């Protein structure tokens, strides 16, 4: 199925704004995300990328505007009108959130297997053998040796921790994953492995991804579409290669011309 074969968006963001005192962190951002699409949010530090991500992921209520998600059994629903219990259920079933620093998204002092199984246990899975089998399968899918299932992430390298964090998020087969700079801070070889993994997951699971990145080369390889943030506003959006090859807005032109060949 191509993204076109769906008739409604998975996520719909309408004019969301957020101020911190007099500081405008987010100025009337709007976009739709369709099933299976990868959307990159790019811009310099302080441009509002992470505020936008947290706001659409139900982690930071906007002052204005609306964020709607197509729940499995009932079309688009305002995520901030849901009860906290509904939000929590969504956050640990149909959504994933991958933090820049894996320590923020993992339990560092429990085993890798327990990290992967936690979301399933939260949904009532209790059969230890089954949970362990699922955890083993997911460790293999993210290329972590199954022998390491009883080790804690403290004993893992940065790249392994990031892959474990992804496995922990994907075990419930979410339809939408938010990622905040998932490849920064990793060696390039480790980064390549992670990009390959993300691309496979997107293709094979029709996973939609919103990824915040400052790395335009990562955006070029992974994202179908891109939004460019500058001073809290979306200044340009479109297909990734349109924005990188023929940027229209002065800030996008500056951003693209400032990096080595993305």
């Amino acid at each position, binding site marked *: *199925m*191509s993204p076109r074969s769906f008739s409604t968006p998975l996520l719909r963001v309408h004019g969301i704004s957020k101020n911190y005192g007099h500081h405008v962190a987010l100025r009337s951002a709007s976009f739709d995300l369709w099933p299976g699409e990868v959307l990159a949010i790019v811009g310099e530090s302080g441009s509002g990328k992470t505020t936008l991500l947290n706001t659409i992921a139900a982690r930071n209520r906007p002052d204005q505007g609306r964020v709607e998600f197509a729940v499995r059994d009932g079309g688009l629903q305002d995520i901030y009108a849901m009860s906290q219990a509904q939000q929590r259920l969504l956050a640990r079933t149909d959504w994933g959130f991958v933090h820049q620093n894996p320590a923020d998204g993992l339990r560092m002092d429990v085993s890798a297997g327990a990290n992967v199984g936690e979301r399933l246990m939260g949904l009532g899975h209790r059969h230890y053998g089954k949970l362990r089998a699922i955890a083993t399968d997911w460790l293999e899918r993210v290329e972590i040796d199954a022998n390491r299932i009883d080790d804690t992430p403290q004993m893992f390298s940065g790249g392994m921790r990031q892959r474990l964090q992804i496995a922990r998020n994907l075990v419930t087969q979410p339809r939408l994953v938010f990622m905040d700079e998932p490849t920064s801070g990793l060696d390039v070889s480790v980064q390549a492995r992670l990009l390959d993994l993300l691309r496979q997951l997107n293709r094979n699971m029709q996973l939609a991804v919103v990824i915040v990145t400052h790395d335009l080369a990562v955006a*070029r390889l992974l994202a179908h579409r891109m939004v460019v943030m500058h001073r809290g506003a979306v200044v340009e959006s479109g297909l990734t290669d349109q924005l990188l090859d023929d940027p229209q807005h002065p800030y996008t032109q500056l951003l693209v011309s400032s990096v080595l060949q993305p």
Partner: protein
Amino acid sequence: MNKPLLQLKAVAKVFTLHNQNSLQIPVFDHIDLEVSAGECVVLDGPSGMGKSTLLKLIYANYRSNSGQILVTGADAVALDVAQATPRELIALRQQTIGYVSQFLRVIPRVSALDIVAESLMEEGMADPQLWESACTEAKQWLSRLRIPERLWSLPPATFSGGEQQRINIARNMIKPRPLLLLDEPTASLDAANTNTVIELIHEARARGAAIVGIFHDVHVGQAVATRHVSVTNFRGVAQ
């Protein structure tokens, strides 16, 4: 005469460099071009005159300032790529437009075989049988383009320029799309591979593809063209 598959009507393109005092670089001021199924239009003109720019306008990674660029998709409906939404463009590129660019851009760890076979898979389809047959077809293309079998399982990052170019050709021509845009596909190929690419272009035309291409080698251009068009015709008088 067939209804054209590709129609450009009064298309203009100016680059504006905002960070260079809004310098304006006009490239085209009036492109009118129609290409029908079974035609191979070869773009001529000195370098720097906008041949690649014209292909990028059709593929929509460059955006035109005015005019219409109509591409007839699989559903027989003409879509104006200058106005199309990103979603419509993604679908159009998957189904209708194949584009062989000058450079291969791929995720570092993916093997040459997977890169080519994936072009035949719809996104979200993980069916092992379909994958198997996609791989079989991809192998035929790699053999035909003389990529040694020992390279198939390797990522192309370390391949020679000519090998990378052949991976790029296989990847973008394997799926029989109705419109093909070819930007110097033979630039770093030897004679044997150049001939193979000429054959592939003839075969694509025979199955009814409309083709627009740029060939730095005059002989290749002559061998594949059903019509030559000079891009200097599309530039303003003052230039």
